[in-house]
Every structure is written in C-alpha cells, then in structure tokens.
C-alpha cells in the first residue's frame, strides 16, 4: 500500500495539498488506497498543519501573481457601451431586427451607443467615455471581448462567473484559490469579500461549498463595523486577560488528557488568531494613516466607510497584508448596471467605480504590488445590440458575447482579445468561455486548472468542470 501522499509532504511540515490530491487521483484509478484512507490522510495532514491550515502552499509552477483582486460589477454592464464599440449600431440605429430574449423572439430596433469612444494610452485601446480614469491605464488593461455563457438571468449568471456552475452549488473561485494556495497572513481570512449589499445569489457567490469551510469568503460589510464581533465587550481589560488565561488553561488540560487530537489544538489557536484579528483588523480598516493625496486619488471622502473607493483602498490594504483573494462587489441586486430602461443609467454606475478602479491600478503599480497582483473586472453578461423594447433606450441581457477584463501581474496590457460580429451579438473569433477565463486566472496564480481538484461525493471536482483553456494569447 502506497504512502506516497504523506511522503510528498515538504520537510517544513507544510502540506502540499494538491500533491496529495494528485497522488490520490492516481491511486483511485488503481484502487490502491481506499477513499476512507485518503480522507483520513487529509485529516491527518490538516491536523499536522494545525491552525496554520492557511499557510502559503507551493504553486504548480512559478506564479505570475500571488494575489487576486476580483472586481465584480453587478447587473451586467454593456460591452457595447464600454469596451466593444460597434459602428454598425450607429449606422443601423432604429432598424428593426429579430431580437432574442429569454422566453421569446420579438421585433426590436437596433440601438446605437449614446457614448463616445476614443483610443487611450500608447496602445490605443478603445475605451468609452464612461471610464475616463480607468482608461488612463489602458496600456495595463486586457479587454476580453468574447466572454460567453448561455445564461441570461442575473442570479445564475452571477453564480456561473464565480463558480463555473449556474445551477448546482459549487465552490467559488476565491475558495478554490484559498484551498489551493493558502494565505500569507494567519491573522486575516484568506478570501475577503467587500460587499455592502448582497449580490444576486447571495452568499452562494463566495461559498466554499464542499471545500473545507475555512476557505469560504468572509464577507465584510462596508460600514462602521465591517467584521462581526470584532469589538471587545465593554469590561475591564484585566478581566479579559484573566478569561484568556483561564480558557487557555482549561483547554490545555482538556487537550493534554486527549493526546493526538489536532482539532483541539487548532480550535484553541483559532482563539489566538481571533485575538490577532481584534488587533490587526481594525488597523486594516483605519485609513487615518493613508496620505491625503492617496485618499483623494481614490475619491474617499472623510468619514466614508462604504463607497467603492473605500472598498478599493481596503482591497489594496488587505492584499498588502497578505490576503490571497479580495473581492470588491460594487453594488447589490438592485440599483446596478441592469440598464433596461436607458443606457444613460450606466453613467452613474460607471462614475461610482471609474475613479476608484483607476486609482487602484495606479496605487498598486506605484507600490510595486501590481507585479504580483492580478486584477479581474467581471460582470454576469453583456447587453443586447437592440433596444430592450420598442422605442426604448435601454438594452436587455445578452450572454452570447460580452466583455470582462484582466489587468496586472502576468497580463498583456493594452490589448483587446477576441472579436464579436459587427453588431456585437455573436462571437466572430476567439471565444472565451467562463471556464477559459477561470483557467487563465488560475494559470496566472501558478495553478494548472485541471490539477486543482477536490474529491467530493465520489468524484473529483474542479473549478473548470471538464473544460477550460488557458488563453495564452493574453499572457505577458
């Protein structure tokens, strides 16, 4: 019987979990090691690792990025009004075409974009007037114009962009990264979600599903108290210290009578981490030491604890402190980019995020963090080339072709990858399925997407299901 998984443990005592799983997958084929044995090997591994289950783990190959900032723009921003301009829409504006929608096909007029586009940066990447500040960093942006799914509902589309699955609950991208790579700072959660409002599909968006629950995203609700139960109860500090000592004694005696149970030690240590968070987390959220010019650059007002600007500067501070994945969700399931009525409604949504996103890229770059940080800017779908309704000025949901972005470490900046047809309705060249997008992101973080698997309910699951292609053309 092979003991290879255990033998592949690095000497430092850290567990190479994916090696363990790779070994296990190979063994499962030969049925050399029963699943129960594997499970216990995993449990032992976790136990041996103690509370340091989040300790950084080696990647499959040298990563281009060591952390990820996911910016999720909720509601489906229009590719046609942001990064994928179409002259033909102008020419055919008002022309009636057969328009597909969720339940039926109807006759709708083509709708020209009301926004101006111009080339930006040295690369001349075309960006609409909606994103003047983000456009300042055109040479760092990689626009992918050919994302596609087959889902035109917010809820399912949002899930697909996060988990690769529109229906069956599966782990989120951030959870997979936490599971696969661990994190650098044991005093902070490995996957932090900054979301003032619940997005479509709620907490399923950052859920770890069947992955161990410590990998679930920890949602921080922008506001005066971003982490629940972080503030100590109002009582004398000496009393708190006495309780801490007493609890430590009580648990030490309990564990000493129960040798060999790593879970007991791990739980005791989680109290130490919690106390660490009580000290460290408030500092993360305290912007008083940020230079006024930096705050100004992001657009954080004095006393602001909620804006996207605040979320973006906190994202940088979290990445700076070793958090593996930070997700910024711009708004919730209402008052978002879902501009059915009038594309002009995109203006305030863009204004909410443009300056902060531009500042985030600039700030990371200045601090040298952009060399190790990948930024993704995503949405659940794009919008139709025709109007939402006869005589309307808005657009309906459209998932057959839409735009998402990458920027930062390892990404070829200043390019638009993939081509849509002259109306922006279908993909003409180089489609990028959400699984391809995820595979590319994992690749940049040093993970071979087919090898990051987790055995659950009798099968090896992965983020990219049974497909996914690394879009090598967008790699620097």
């Amino acid at each position, binding site marked *: 019987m092979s003991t290879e998984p255990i033998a592949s443990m690095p000497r430092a005592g850290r567990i190479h979990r994916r090696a363990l799983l790779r070994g296990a997958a190979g063994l499962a084929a030969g049925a050399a090691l029963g*699943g129960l044995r594997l499970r216990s090997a995993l449990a032992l591994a976790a136990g041996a690792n103690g509370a340091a289950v989040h300790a950084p783990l080696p990647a499959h190959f040298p990563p281009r990025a060591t952390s990820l900032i996911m910016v999720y723009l909720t509601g489906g921003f229009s590719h046609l009004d942001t990064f994928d301009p179409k002259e033909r829409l102008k020419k055919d504006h008002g022309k009636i075409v057969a328009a597909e929608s969720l339940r039926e096909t109807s006759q709708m007029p083509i709708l020209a974009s009301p926004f101006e586009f111009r080339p930006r940066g040295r690369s001349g990447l075309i960006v609409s007037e909606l994103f003047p500040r983000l456009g300042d960093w055109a040479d760092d942006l990689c626009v992918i114009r050919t994302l596609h799914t087959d889902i035109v*509902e917010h809820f399912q589309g949002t899930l697909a962009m996060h988990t690769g699955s529109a229906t069956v609950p599966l782990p989120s991208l951030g959870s997979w990264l936490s599971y696969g790579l661990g994190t650098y700072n044991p005093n902070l*959660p490995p996957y932090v979600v900054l979301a003032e409002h619940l997005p479509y599909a*709620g907490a399923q968006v950052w859920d770890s599903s069947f992955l161990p629950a410590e990998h679930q995203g920890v949602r921080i609700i922008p506001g005066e108290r971003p982490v629940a*139960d972080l503030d100590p109860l109002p009582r004398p500090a*000496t009393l708190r210290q006495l309780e801490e000592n007493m609890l430590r004694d009580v648990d030490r005696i309990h564990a000493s009578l129960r040798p060999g149970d790593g879970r007991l030690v791990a739980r005791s240590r989680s109290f130490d981490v919690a106390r660490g968070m*009580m000290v460290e987390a408030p500092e993360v959220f305290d912007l008083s030491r940020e230079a006024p010019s930096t705050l100004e650059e992001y657009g954080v007002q004095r006393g602001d604890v909620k804006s996207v600007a605040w979320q973006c500067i906190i994202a940088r501070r979290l990445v700076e402190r070793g958090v593996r994945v930070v997700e910024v969700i711009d708004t919730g399931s209402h008052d978002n980019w879902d501009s059915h009525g009038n594309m002009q409604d995109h203006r305030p949504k863009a204004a909410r995020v443009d300056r902060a996103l531009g500042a985030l890229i600039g700030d990371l770059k200045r601090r040298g963090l952009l060399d190790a940080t990948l930024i993704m800017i995503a949405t659940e779908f794009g919008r139709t080339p025709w109007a939402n309704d006869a005589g309307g000025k808005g657009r309906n949901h459209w998932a057959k072709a839409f735009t998402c972005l990458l920027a930062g470490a390892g990404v070829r900046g200043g390019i638009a990858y993939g081509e849509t047809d002259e109306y922006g309705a279908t993909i003409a060249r180089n489609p990028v399925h959400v699984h391809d997008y995820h595979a590319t992101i994992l690749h940049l973080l040093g993970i071979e997407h087919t090898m990051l698997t987790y055995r659950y*309910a*009798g099968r090896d699951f992965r983020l990219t299901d049974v497909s996914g292609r690394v879009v090598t053309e967008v790699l620097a």
Partner: protein
Amino acid sequence: MRNAAPLLLLSLLCARGTNTVSCGEPHWAFQPIVKPEPPPDPSGTSAHPVDRFILAKLRERSISQGAPADKAALCRRAYFGLTGLPPSPGELDAFLTDTSSDAFPHLVDSLLASPRFGERWARRWLDVARYADTAGDNADFPVPEARLYRDYVIAAFNSDKPFDAFVREQVAGDILAREGPREKYAESVAATGFLALSRRYGTGPYELWHLTLEDSIETIGRAFLGLTLRCARCHDHKYDPVTMRDYYALYGILASTRFPWAGSEEVQSKGLCRMKFPPLVPTAEAAPVLQAFEKRLESLRSDIARMEKETPKPEEMLKATRAELRNLEKPGLPPDLAGAYAVDEGDPADAAVQLQGEPGHPGPVIPRGAPAFLPGGGPLAIAMGSSGRRELAEWLTRPDQPLVARVEANRIWQGLFGKGIVSTASNFGLRGEPPTHPELLDWLAAELVDGGWSVKRIIRLIATSRTYCLSSAEVPVASAADPANALYWRFDRRRLEAEELRDAVLATSGSLDLTPSSPHPFPGPEKWTWTQHAPFKEVYASPRRSIYVMTQRIQRHPFLALFDGPDTNATTESRRESTVPLQALYFLNDPTLDAEARAFAKRVLASSGDERGRVKFAVSAAWAREPREAEIERAAEFLQSCGAALDAAGFDAAKKAEEVWTSYARVLLASNEFAYVD
C-alpha cells in the same frame, strides 16, 4: 452472480472504458441483501451482533478495542447523540447514581421516548431533504407552509413511523391520503413537502422547470437510493449504470405531478398569485370552502366594477376594495382553508428525452418508470390517470430493493458514530466509497427490514453495543495501525453541529424554550413585494430549538452559516467541520453569547450557597461531569482574581458576583470541552 442486468450494463461501461475498478464483478450495493450471520467471537465475551462484526475485523488486523467510556462521558454522548441536547445536572446525576447493570439501556430507552429525540433525528433527515423555509427563486419567497413538512418529519421520528412508510408518504403521500384514515390525511399530504421543497429558479412561475425537476430527481436518488442521477440529464452516467432513459423515465413521473408555486418577483411585477397549494382536508371538505371563497371574490370584483362606473368614482373605497381583493387572492387559498407546501397529481404523460439536457431539443419519449438496472426497474405499470408516484413509492420499498434499506441503515450508523460504514452516505454508486464493514451494513439493513423498518429499534441496537460505549481516548498501538479509526477501536470524538451548539448554549444557560413548532412571523400578503433586486431576507430571533429557526436559501442564517450548518440548496449527506477565527470571535465578543453567559451565571449563583457547590453545578451543566479537585482550586483562584480586577476598576460591588461568574460561564461555554463530545 445473482442478477444479470447490472453485470451486462457494467460490462458495457467497461467497454466504454469509464470504469477500471469493478469490471468483472457486479457492484456490491446493487446486489440483493442476504443477511449474514454475525461472526463467532472466540473470546466468548461479546454476544452483541454489532460487536461481533466489529471485533472480527479488528482481529484480522490484531487490533484490540480500547477501554469503555466512563459513565459521565457516555451519558453526554448518548444525550447529544439521541436528543441533540446535553443532560441537565439532574439528569446526569440520576444516571450516575443508577448502579443497576442495565442503567445504560434504560437511559437509551428513555431518550428514544423523549420528544427531543425526533427534533434531533429529524434534523438529519431535513439535511438530506434540503429543507428551507423559502423557495429559492430569485426573490427567495418565504413559504410559511414549509414547516408542516418539517413537523411531519419530527413526528415521524418520534412516533417511529416505519421507514418504508416514511419513504412512500414523501413520494406519494397525497395519493395515499385519499385511501387512508381521515385523521391521517393532513400529515400524509404534508409529507410530499419532500418533493415540493425542490429548488426553484428564476423570476416567474415554473421557470427553468427542468432544473427544478433535476433537483427533485437528484434528491430522490441521493436520499433514498444513494445514487447520483443528475448526470443522466445530459448523458448516460459515466460511472453508474444509470442511463438517460432512466432519468427521463423519472422525469415523466415528476412532470406529471402538480407542484405548488410559492410566489416570486412576478407576484409584484405581474400581479400573479401563489398557486396549487393542496388543502389539508379531502377534496369533498375543501370544495364548499373554495366555493364560498370564490363567491366572495366575485362579489368584490363586481363591487369594483360597479364603483368604476360611478361618477364621481369613490376613489378611496375603490382602492381599499382592490387591495382587499388582491390580498385575498395572493395566497392562492382561502384564509379559512389551510394548505400544505406539497404536491398533487397533475396531467399524466410520458416525457421526452432532452438532448444535451436542453428542453428545446426533444428526443424519444420514454415510458415513466424506475432505473432499469435495479430489481423491478424499467417502465412501471402505472394506473390510468396517475402520475406514477404511487408506483414509484411502491417500487422504492419493494422487498427486493437493496438500496433503500442499506442507505438508511448507513445513515442511522452515521447518526450515532459521526461517520457512515459507507462514508459517502448519499452515494452508494461506483464512485462512492466502499463500505468499511459490508457484512455489518447488510446485517443492519436486513435487521431494519425484519424489524418492520423501525428506526428506533436499530438505534437502540447499535447504541447498546460495546462499540458505541467505547472511550474516545487514544490507544497508541491501535492508532498507529488504524489512524482513522476505520475499524472502531475507539469512539470518534466529534464537534457539536451548529444546531447542537446553539441548543446546548441555550440549555446550559437555562434560556431554552422547549415549546415545539409555531408559525414563523412572516409578513402578510400585502407586504409580498420581494424581487430579485430586493429579495426576502430576515433573521427571526428565537429562544426555541434550532430546528425551529427560520432558514432561507439565498441568504444563510448567520449562526448556522458560521458553524457549518447544512446547505439549504442541495441535499447534504454530512456536515463539514470548519475551525475559523470568526467562530472564536463569536465566543469572545458576541452580545448574544454574552447574554447567555450572564443567564448561565445567574443560574449558577442560584444553584448553591457556596462557591464549591456553584463550580460543581457549572461544570456539571457545561461539561456533564464532576470537576476534579485541581479544577475547583483553579476556578476559585480565577474567581478571586476576577473579583480583585473588578475592585481595582471600581466596579459596583452589588453586581460583582454576577460579573465574576459571567466570566467563568463564558470560559466554560467557549471551551473545547463544551464544543466537543467524547
């Protein structure tokens, strides 16, 4: 080889090269159950059949079982295991002072007879049935009637309803109700909440319906048969002999079934009403109520029509009447006719295969039936006008159906030991884990059937084995040979599940309200304006047991989410056990926990006049044992230091005792000994 069909299919699978493990021999789980004889025990010390199976395997590996658990540990284990609550100091004392040789079997009997038993064991089934109090549509509409199914499950476990009847009622209770006694009508209808609870999608009624039925089929497969049927929606199962034909044979049965619609965004945006909630009384009794209701609606409608013609229009009155009509219509049932979130017979028809899983690409029509590779599978002889659920229910519980009894026997084992004999409790297919003790599993499954499908009987049987009563202590020699304790040389220590933890805190502090079910305080129909943009989300505070707490699908309950509660969106076979600092923060700083610590402190203060007595009571309530002398001394020192710290801080002397004991109570509630059961 007893059954040719599975072998044939397996060989086809092998030909496809999808399975390299079991070729050449039929998969164990699909074979008939033949009750094995418990192996002899050469030592002659163990008469219990469960122990004989366990010891035989240990002997093969030359491992000895460890010592039995001490009495206090056993008491706490049995209380949590059977009722999900800790023993009170009085209950602990009663057991410790009962020195009769059958004290433990007596305890097991009394716990099985307690109403708390059903509340604990129903929770496990509700995990499997992906129970929630909301529908899961994009606006997550509340379903006030869902709790009738929850209460049905609790009552079923408490009354020890035979498990085969439990299965049949959940699949076809509405049909069985028409033939059964009048007083059982309501519960039998409510039982089909199992199907009605299928996950909803989208913003309108029956949107993406093929996905809802996929959840029904997958949950039926996993819950009863331990089979993952979902894969066969788009292609023949890659590993198990489940084909697309099998999937669409079941699909036809469910598509012929009428599901209720609990509302969604389109209640608001399109003025739709809830619909198809079956009444809890037979049709003949419901008819006059429905007629009277229809009359009332008609009269309101004609009032509105009349007012609309008047000049000037009585705007206020018109508005009020319209609102009255709308609020009466919205629930989909008259206010004086209770309904269930349950299913009914629809328009029976066979379904066509959906090529690539796409409803828009129909393939051949498949006769309704059950998975063909299992005994009696294939097309079922379905009565005219019936969906086929009744026939499916009967097929599931046929005497030669090997999976239902095996799966349930395994779930009972998992409920007591924290892990199944098959560790993938809802997957007995080729990609599930093989059983650690196949003969024991078959013996238990046969025993379950032989005992009239009595769940309590099997629980009692297992709980009174020596194996269940083992100490959880480490035995280094055994641990080296079998680190995962797959062979049961000890009892696995386990962490309390989310509901147990919450209930234990409330029970220890004395705040737990043991009143059973009552309706959740959902807002009335006039406030049903939720949309996907502003979905329903509430957390209702409650001093009741956690099984009665309102849980949602899109938003998770914060406490249950923090402590690894079940996924309310998909069938859950076992709980995760995460250890994150946010959980520790809850014990350190949460105001709710602080209030419970304070209540516990008051209870401790009232328990005895002296410090020693109080420490004894506190330790008994939190840890269910006597404190050791050194612990009493350490507690005394702690209490004194806390007092001194408060004095130094100028704390109000009158409140000092409560404050000091609250600190002690908090330490006990936060301790590992509280969170883990030996």
